[in-house]
């Protein structure tokens, strides 16, 4: 019966195990998969990320050069990040803040630059 007494005293005297959440936030670890984002300038719009995604939350339009992610459907597995051939996607160790409405990440890339040969031909 008195086994817990030591523990109870420790709990009373010691530091609290919990945090006052909105004021003190816990530091996340380096490897934590918190938020998915993309560096759209480097993206080649190949659509590999959309093919690998198990929840099919990513849509890539090759012609329109847009990248859309329904971040509420994302399961943060980082399959897309590992599959990306140009490694332009990354996961930051920051938890997404609570949102009041549906959040869709939308990026429009730069229009495709013409290849060198075609550019030369156009000049001539």
């Amino acid at each position, binding site marked *: 019966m008195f086994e817990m007494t030591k523990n109870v005293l420790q709990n009373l005297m010691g530091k609290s195990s919990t945090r006052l959440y909105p004021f003190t936030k816990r530091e996340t670890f380096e490897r934590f998969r918190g938020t998915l984002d993309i560096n759209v300038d480097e993206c080649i719009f190949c659509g590999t990320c959309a093919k690998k995604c198990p929840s099919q939350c990513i849509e890539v339009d090759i012609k329109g050069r847009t990248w859309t992610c329904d971040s509420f459907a994302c399961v943060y597995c*980082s399959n897309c990040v590992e599959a990306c051939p140009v490694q332009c996607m990354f996961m930051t160790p920051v938890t997404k803040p609570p949102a009041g409405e549906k959040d869709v990440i939308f990026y429009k890339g730069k229009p495709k630059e013409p290849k060198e040969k075609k550019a030369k031909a156009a000049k001539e």
Partner: protein
Amino acid sequence: MRTILPFGPQHPVLPEPIHLKLVVEDEKVVEALPNLGYVHRGLEKLTDIRDYNQMVNIVERVCGICSCIHSLNYCEAMEEMLKIEVPQRAHFLRVMWGEIHRIHSHLLWLGLFADGFGFESLFMQFWRIRERAMDLMEATAGNRVVISTNIVGGVRKDITPDMKTWILSEIDKTETEVRALEKTILEDYTVKQRCCGKGVLTKEQAHMLGAVGPMLRGSGWAQDARQTGYAAYGQLDFEPVVEYDGDSYARSKVRFREVYASCDLVRQALAKMPEGEISTKVKGKPEGEVWRRVEQPRGELYYYLKGNGSKNLDRVRIRTPTFANIPPLLAMLPGCELADVPVIVLSIDPCISCTER
């Protein structure tokens, strides 16, 4: 006089929705009839539209608490079908994460069990210790519960030497903290009053009704799927934890002592881990059929996979431990007091989203 009382689907002690129709005579339970199907999600059918690599993430979501071991089983079965040799380091890393997962699951259950018979302070103690296991998973694999670390062909992340020492120190701390609670849960008067002799499952019944995991081992059978030596378990020293009384108390004892066994296995896996690659390249498409079983915190988990030579599997059949443990539960309930029903139901560690998938 006979009365029918509904127990669940929403009940203060039940973490998940199961409905039990209890036929009671005064205060004694005479019969129990289960009603399932509240959280069926059709995960097995998803094989039609998701390829076998994406299925790893889907089978992980069968159950949150043992997600890592679900994906371990699926990946091992898939590797057997594709005839891939996985690097040794990956096997040891899988064991490490599986055992950390087991620690977290058992501590979660022990807390819920304490809460089930009204010992809220003990519940808080267990969940505070569990936080260490969660931090270990977040730091090493990248998430707290559904860690998505196993892939077909190996594992995703490696651990650094710094992490290794940190994991060992955290495991030591977990063990000392759990040991401090040993007397409270195993020798306390209140706990004994609430658990001893409640929901007795005899040795013969356990065998006949096909109980698995701590249910089976609490009734005196030394059977554990880890003895089959899947992943790297064949290279580690391991003995199943057995108790002989077959009541709720024996089952909680088994789970409590398994936390120590898991701590020991993590240490062994880290000590014997060889250097090298952590994954191999996967080629080919699955064809044929394969079944495999592993030990989850709750018991034995079966996977049956059938491939047809395309990237989508034909069939994924999962039999989870709670599914096997429901018939023994129904055998335990008749004859008990109505007030003991929550303790008995919790003592099988029900995971209904596992059962229904």
